[in-house]
């Protein structure tokens, strides 16, 4: 099994994701520059956080047209496991692989701190090692993480169990960015694509303050 970490100009959490897959989980992993167009040998794909293309226009809007995105869209259609973290989530919504949009945080500030994230569903391939209702300490670091979606999309997300993570009310400020229904992470209808604003790759070893996020990677890679 090999994992791909996609690197866009401006990605800055690519090494963290690579480190977790390789050093913490002991799984083979490669960096994939955004001009590549073949991802066929990878079992799972990570779109890491950062500021692809400087967040110009809108976060994720320009990265969506990188050559590698065609391969990512094809991989998503084939049912491969794909996770977009922070800027990766923004790219997934801009590319239409996930519904809705991420706009500027309600309080306008860039937020960088630990938050409490609640596991709303453990029936996804990304959360099967958690229990429903688990509360995870995972950092956020974003300015455009305020999830918005039409009532129609929200209903569909709810009906299909696609809301997998929410900001837990125990956060000092509840819902830190103003996301509708406190949404922190969603999956696509098929269940093979996850986008989330919190950074589980920064919460994968207890020496760094929390290892609550590592089960996301273990779950998606089928590591027991």
């Amino acid at each position: 099994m090999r994992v791909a970490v996609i690197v866009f100009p401006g990605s800055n959490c690519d090494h963290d994701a690579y480190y977790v897959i390789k050093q913490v989980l002991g799984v083979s992993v490669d960096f994939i520059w955004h001009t590549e167009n073949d991802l066929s040998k990878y079992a799972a794909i990570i779109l890491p956080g950062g500021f692809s293309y400087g967040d110009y226009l809108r976060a994720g809007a320009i990265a969506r047209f990188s050559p590698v995105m065609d391969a990512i869209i094809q991989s998503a259609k084939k049912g491969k496991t794909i996770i977009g973290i922070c800027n990766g989530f923004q790219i997934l919504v801009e590319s239409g692989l996930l519904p809705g949009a991420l706009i500027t945080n309600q309080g306008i500030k860039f937020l960088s701190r630990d938050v409490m994230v609640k596991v709303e569903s453990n029936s996804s391939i990304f959360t099967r090692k958690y229990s429903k209702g688990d509360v995870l300490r995972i950092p956020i670091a974003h300015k455009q993480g305020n999830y918005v979606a039409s009532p129609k999309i929200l209903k569909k997300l709810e009906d299909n169990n696609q809301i997998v993570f929410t900001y837990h009310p125990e956060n000092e400020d509840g819902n830190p960015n103003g996301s509708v229904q406190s949404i922190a992470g969603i999956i696509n209808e098929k269940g093979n694509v996850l986008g989330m604003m919190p950074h589980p790759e920064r919460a994968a070893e207890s020496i760094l303050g929390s290892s609550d996020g590592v089960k996301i990677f273990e779950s998606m890679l089928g590591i027991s």
Partner: protein
Amino acid sequence: MKAKIYLTYKEGILDPEGNAVKRALKSIGFNSVDTVQFGKYIEMTFTGVSKEEAEKLTDEACRKLLANPNTQSYRFEVAEQ
């Protein structure tokens, strides 16, 4: 040809910048301000295309990249430079 493009949040989408600036305006005495709406303004120039072609291209650019159809609406004007 020059296109002037205006992007704004769609109705119902909370505009955090607009709200913050509205509060700031009120705090310095602009009490009659009802709403402040932030947006983006983009200019694009074209050579060797007609006005109709430029309008068509601008519309396509807005749909494919410049505007996010989930949250933003756009309008534009195209004129000789």
